[in-house]
Each structure stands twice: as structure tokens, then as C-alpha cells.
């Protein structure tokens, strides 16, 4: 076509009504699609029919349970008990949603953690937009976190003081994750750089820390932070439980993230270091201008993987008596009137966790695509 412009133009003009175009269009229909994708061979046809049979068996009862026979609202659990086994008891979630989302925070003050939650989610959403990757984003975060602190603690502007022992629910999960990642990520970059440094002492410390923290379960780290740490502190110095858990989470996340960052660092060809050295760039300039921009981009998939598992790992703070989203559900279930509706409660938790994790995952895919596009043709 390119060699013959006249013929090329003619072809384009008549193609929408040409027979070949109509034939092609026929191929996009439902029947050819089914034949190509679901019934391409005997084995594939049998598999398709089998899966359809399974769905036929499983889906209608599930829909009955979750929607048609479900109890949506009820003043107490009697209606739920009557429907037990046939329909889901969403009334439990409806009844307990305030406690599940806000924990033991004073009931009449629930608007404060609610607003803080919305604010925190808005901050994350804002940071996801590449147009907002400017210096002022740091100021927005600082201001936003200050407002969240005021909302949660209170004690000023006529807001009653609420000690952080009473914080709970979704906002606690979000706070633990936000501060966990905000501190763990820079620490992880430093650890990864130290692990690859030429200085044996520094390298040894980094390797020791990473191996030690990765080698023990998060639960034991949290126990140590909550039970043993206070023993080592000088008398009179007390760090509250939330902060101790936060520190344990930061250290844990840093060890995992450091390995993800190291993977990215290892993928940088030695020639990049040599070229930077030959220009006379100092170590930190070389690292910040040449190495990290490339290494972190390569490390996006494993980093997001760690972010997502960290978000879910924060639920382990329940074992040291902090009431995050999952713990408040557990506590809500202990009320005798409502015990036995665990499936519905945990399904609700799963949906909330999934929404956040899926958002992270979709965003990272999007980011990878955008960065690749910004550098289109980096490798032709």
C-alpha cells in the first residue's frame, strides 16, 4: 500500500463496503468467537460444558443466599436466626457497621474518624495522579496528616481528647499502613544501598538486619515490641502501644521492601555506574539521579506486591490488643446475640480489603504502562 499511494487511497475509501470488510466483520460475531475460544477442540468443548454445569449448580444457591433470601435489616438477630442456613444475615453488618468501622471510638464522635478516613483516602488518591507529583504534594500531605491528627486526638478547637488506645477500625488499618510505608520505604532504600555498598561493616549490618527481621514471623516482632521493648526502656520512659506496634511494622516492612529495591538495583548495568563515575558525579548524586530512578521503576511489581501484603499484615496487630478493621469484626462477633454470623462479617472484611488491594494493584499496572509510554521507544 505504501508503495502505491493511489491504490492505497482507493483501498481505504472503498474498504468499509468491500466484501472483504464484511467477511471480516462476520468474524467478530458471537458464534465464531465461541467456536474459536470455547469449542476449538473436543477437550476444550468438554471442559467448557463441565464448567457451565458447575456454575449452574453453584451460582443460583449463592445468589439466593447472598441476595434473594438474605436478611438486610432486622432490629435483632431473631430474623437472622430464622433464615439461618438459607439466607445471609447482612443485618449483622448493618447493625454493627459503626463499631466495625470505628472501633471503640466515642460513639457520638464517629464523624471524626469518618472524616479522617475520607481525608486519608483522598490524600492517597491525590498522590496517585502524576500531575500532582510536585513539591507541594509534600506540603499537602503534611497539612492533611496534621488535620487527621487533630481530628483523631482532638483536645483543641473544642474537640474532646480521645486517647489513641480507643482508636480502631478502618482508620487504624489505614494509619498503620500509611505511616508504615512512609517510614519503611526510605529505610528500605537505605538498607538496599547499604547491602550493596563496598563497606563491609555497613553491608554486614544491613544483611544482619534484613535476615533477622525476615527470619521471624511478624507476630513475634509485634509481641517483642509490645512486651519486651518496655523492659529495655529506662524507667519513666513509656512509648504507647500503638507507636510500638507501628515501629515493629515499619521494621518488618523495611526488610521486605529492601529486598525488592535490591532486585531493582541489581538490574542496573555496571556501565551506568561507570558512566556516572566517569562524569565525576558523587556517590549520592549518582544514586539519586542515575541509579534509583531506574532501579525503582524496575522494582515496581515486587514493591507493590510488598505494599499489598503489608496492608493485609497490619491486621496482625489484633494479637497485641489493637482494634484494626479485622479485630473490630472479631469483637463484634463475640456478642452472644449476634454470634454465629462470622461468614457474613468476614465476607464484609474481605470486600473492604479487596477494594483497597485491588486499587493498589490496578494503579501499579497503570503506572507501569504510563512510565513505559513516557519513555516510548526506549527499546525499539
Amino acid at each position: 500500500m505504501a508503495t502505491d499511494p493511489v491504490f492505497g487511497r482507493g483501498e481505504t475509501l472503498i474498504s468499509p463496503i468491500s466484501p472483504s470488510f464484511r467477511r471480516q466483520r462476520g468474524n467478530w460475531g458471537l458464534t465464531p468467537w465461541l467456536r474459536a475460544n470455547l469449542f476449538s477442540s473436543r477437550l476444550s468443548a468438554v471442559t467448557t460444558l463441565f464448567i457451565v454445569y458447575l456454575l449452574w449448580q453453584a451460582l443460583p444457591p449463592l445468589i439466593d443466599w447472598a441476595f434473594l433470601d438474605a436478611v438486610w435489616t432486622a432490629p435483632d438477630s431473631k430474623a437472622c436466626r430464622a433464615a439461618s442456613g438459607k439466607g445471609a444475615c447482612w443485618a449483622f453488618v448493618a447493625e454493627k457497621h459503626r463499631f466495625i468501622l470505628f472501633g471503640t471510638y466515642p460513639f457520638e464522635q464517629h464523624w471524626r474518624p469518618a472524616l479522617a478516613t475520607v481525608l486519608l483516602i483522598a490524600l492517597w488518591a491525590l498522590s496517585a495522579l502524576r500531575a500532582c507529583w510536585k513539591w507541594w504534594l509534600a506540603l499537602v500531605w503534611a497539612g492533611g496528616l496534621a488535620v487527621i491528627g487533630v481530628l483523631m486526638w482532638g483536645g483543641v478547637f473544642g474537640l474532646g481528647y480521645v486517647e489513641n488506645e480507643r482508636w480502631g477500625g478502618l482508620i487504624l488499618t489505614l494509619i498503620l499502613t500509611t505511616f508504615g510505608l512512609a517510614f519503611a520505604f526510605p529505610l528500605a532504600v537505605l538498607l538496599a544501598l547499604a547491602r550493596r555498598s563496598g563497606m563491609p561493616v555497613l553491608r554486614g549490618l544491613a544483611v544482619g538486619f534484613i535476615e533477622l527481621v525476615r527470619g521471624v514471623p511478624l507476630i513475634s516482632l509485634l509481641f517483642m515490641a509490645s512486651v519486651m521493648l518496655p523492659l529495655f526502656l529506662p524507667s519513666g520512659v513509656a512509648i504507647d502501644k500503638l507507636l510500638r506496634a507501628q515501629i515493629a511494622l515499619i521494621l518488618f516492612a523495611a526488610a521486605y521492601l529492601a529486598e525488592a529495591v535490591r532486585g531493582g538495583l541489581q538490574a542496573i548495568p555496571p556501565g551506568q555506574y561507570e558512566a556516572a563515575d566517569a562524569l565525576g558525579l558523587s556517590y549520592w548524586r549518582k544514586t539519586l539521579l542515575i541509579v534509583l530512578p531506574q532501579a525503582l521503576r524496575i522494582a515496581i511489581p515486587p514493591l507493590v506486591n510488598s505494599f499489598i501484603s503489608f496492608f493485609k499484615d497490619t491486621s496482625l496487630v489484633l494479637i497485641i490488643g489493637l482494634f484494626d478493621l479485622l479485630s473490630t469484626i472479631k469483637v463484634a462477633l463475640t456478642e452472644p446475640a449476634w454470634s454465629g454470623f462470622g461468614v457474613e462479617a468476614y465476607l464484609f472484611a474481605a470486600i473492604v480489603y479487596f477494594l483497597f488491594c485491588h486499587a493498589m494493584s490496578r494503579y501499579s499496572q497503570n503506572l507501569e504502562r504510563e512510565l513505559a509510554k513516557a519513555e516510548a521507544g526506549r527499546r525499539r
Partner: protein
Amino acid sequence: MIQMRKVNKWFGRFHALKDLDLVVGRGEKYVVCGPSGSGKSTMIRLINQLETHQSGQVIVDGVELDNDLRKIDAVRREVGMVFQSFNLFPHLTVLENLTLGPIWVQSMPAPEAKELAMQLLERVRIPEQAAKHPGQLSGGQQQRVAIARALCMRPKLMLFDEPTSALDPEMIKEVLDVMVELAAEGMTMIVVTHEMGFARTVADRVVFMDQGEIVESAPPGDFFSSPQTARARLFLSQILGH
């Protein structure tokens, strides 16, 4: 400009450079050749200390290189280097590749650095590529950007480590042309290359290395017409023999 005296270098137990002596004066052009593994690259990488030597003296522009990082930084600011595999920074545009050194090492104001970079891109004849990323350029264009990047630091000495070995044949000339021009302007140059045509026209001296030693060092006319050693004769017959 460069003095090397009795320089020795080991990689583990492998003796890479053996009692190397080399003196290069200001404005001189040296071409270094020899079979692979003969220590050519190691030798020129000593000059800006991408490799370190274990014994002997390396003096560049009056500064003797030891473990003192300040001296190494001082020398790297005076010495430009061009690599076989270009080593451009893929996440930066061509222009950013050029201005990085002047801005961050020499603290040059950004507009001035940009102006200098554009001048140098004119000189290597690719100003229209300034906004592209290195991956969008051909090998020959990338290597010319790499030369411009090194020149942006206004070096007193340029090192070339097999600058045309990774290029497709039709792109070799565009890079060599730039290097010939640079030589004509009086730049001190040390070039590791097997481009013997380039050596004949540009070099003041050809240095032939084998097994970590300088076997012969002579003006190109003498070296090509009457090599003194059997090793050099063998090498020349191998690379010129077809």
C-alpha cells in the same frame, strides 16, 4: 599530561598489567591496540580510576592518583570517557544526558548548561534529537551523544574505549568523523580501537599491547610498515589480513 610508571594491576591472581610505562604529552593522540585480554581497556580505565592499580605511579595532569577520593574526583572532572556500549542514561533525554554533568558536578546554571549542550549537539550533528530518549536513536547517534556528553565537561583529555566496536559497519564512519574533527582541534586523546585507518590518519603514536605489557610503541608509519616484534606482526596480519 599522563605519566604511568611501573604500573601493576592484578585481578585476583591474574596479572593484568605488568610494569607498564607510558607518557602522553598535551595534545598528543595515542591509539592503543592489541588482542583481546591484553589489558588495553584496563590501562585506559586506570587513567580515570574506574580501575585501581596496586603498584606504580599514575599521574594525570600533575595529580598523582592514589586512594584519595578528592584527587580522583579532580581528575575525573578533567577527563572525558566514551565507552564501547555508550552507557547513556536511558531514563533521561539526550539533552538531560548532556547537562547532567555540568549542572551537578560543575554547578553550572541550567540555561548555560543547555546552551553548551546544544552547541555540542550541533558539533556532533544531531541537534534535532535533543528531546528524544537514547533508546530512540541509532547506535551511531547514541555514540555521538556519548561523545558530546563527555565534551560537555570541557575535558582536557578524552579516553575512548573501543568506541566503534558495538556499532553496525555503516555507522562507524559518522563516529570516527567526529573523533577526527576533535583530534584536529588539538584534544589530547587516548583511543583503544582496531580502526587502523583512524590510527594512520590521526595517531601520533600507536601502542601495541599484549598480555599486560606494552610490546611496541611507534609512530603509525613505522608501526604499520615495519613492526619490530613477531607478536605485533602476527596481530597486524590477523586484523589486516583479509
